[in-house]
């Protein structure tokens, strides 16, 4: 069963990608991905640039509305996502809890909708 691990990071997490905490930040992620791969869990996904780089588009009445943005102005912001293939929610939650963002921001786990 495929699950998305949606990574929500704080402003301080995003800053840690390039300040003096960067080595620790990236090392934690590298170790996490290595653990996933070592456990033989099929995974995919992408990391995203900081929310300041986001642009929101809507089309209303045939007109395109482009806005600076991330979509939601929340304390934690989407930092990336992973998909993993594990037997059930409990195992997905196990891997979500190990994800570095779980202890500094939040991680949302959702089953992937199977395509017919």
């Amino acid at each position, binding site marked *: 069963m495929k*699950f998305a691990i949606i990574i929500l990071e704080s402003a301080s997490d995003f800053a840690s990608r390039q300040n003096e905490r960067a080595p620790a930040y990236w090392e934690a992620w590298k170790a996490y991905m290595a653990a996933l791969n070592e456990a033989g869990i099929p995974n995919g996904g992408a990391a995203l640039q900081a929310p300041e780089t986001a642009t929101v588009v809507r089309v209303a009445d045939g007109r395109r509305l482009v806005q600076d943005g991330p979509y939601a102005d929340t304390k934690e912001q989407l930092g990336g996502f992973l998909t993993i293939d594990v*037997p*059930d*929610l*409990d195992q997905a*939650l196990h891997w979500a809890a190990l994800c570095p963002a779980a202890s500094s921001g939040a991680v949302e786990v*959702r*089953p992937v909708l199977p395509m*017919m």
Partner: protein
Amino acid sequence: MNAAHESEVHEALRAVVARSHGRLVASLARSGRDLSAAEDALADALREALEQWPVLGVPREPEAWLWTVSRRRLLDRARRDTVRRGAAEALLASFDREPSPLELGEVVSSDVIPDERLALLFVCAHPAIDPSVRTPLMLQTVLGLDAGKIASAFLVAPATMGQRLVRAKTKIRDAGIPFEVPVRRDWPERLGSVLEAIYAAYGTGWDELGVDARQADLSREAITLARLVVHLLPDEAEAHGLLALLLFCESRRAARRVDGRYVPLDAQEVARWDFGAIDEAFAEVDEAARRAHLGRFQLEALVQAMHARRRFGEAVDWDGLAALYAAIVRVTPTLGAHVAQAAVVGRARSPREGIALLASLAAAHPTEVARYQPYHATLAALLEAAGDGVAAAEARTRAIGLTEDPAVRAWLTRG
């Protein structure tokens, strides 16, 4: 089989549902993790029984009959449902691993129905399920209570309760919640949630001032669930502790209200207590103690046990109770536990010491305490015992204002 009278069929079906609803639904839901589909299939089978049993007679093993028909209906539905094509294959695969489908009317033992009720209890109390719906979910899926009855106990509209239950079942089906007994390592938390949900079904407070008469209907259902957990997990001390706690509370049902009037615990007539329930509760306390694994429910059961000793003509040991509450507030530092501790310390030592505990509680949680009825009721009683009539009257007015239960209100406003 011979034809059966309609009333005999109704009686037989009522008995099967009361006895085996949880076992049937749990075994039907397991492979597809789909509780709604399992309940629908069982409903189909019950309808067929209503048509066929008056003609064919009541089968010797009614559970096995219903299980066989339900599994067929479950498979039929899965095949029809093109959106969930995968479900039919999964079901077929699981049927292959089990005894081959049985012919209707054939005499087979109900023992062939796997008992997945423990897994079902853990599913209902899974951390991914909203805590407020765990108890209703257990009552419906394990005991077969209808949403209307559950709704009235939880003070919500039946339609609202129905929606919450459907949402929870959809989440169980789609979110990948495993239909399994969790690994031992996760038990402290997971079994705790199961026991909490059963305790919530009983719905009693720490000091009986919070007892809500509208919940009373569910108390026997809660005891049924607690018995089931003890039966399925005989080695879990806390399961025995919970059953003991519920039995002690239940034993005082008739003494708690006399002619509609509220009677506080230490004023209750011992003769009105249910001695059978008390004996069983003491036996459960012993069972728990033998497992040497103390926990929250056992501590609460021990408090009840000390009050229940009045049954043997013994006085209440207030010092012993104060010691127990010192342990309880460490394990579960809830508002209710702290207030109950203050009440007991007020009796064991002096009202002033109890009042001091309440004062420090109010300093730490001013907003919660302001609207917590047992706090004001306990404060009123302690102030009165300390001889401070003016402050006691003020606290009593607050307690009355926060009371929903007319019998408790009448007791607080007594002259």
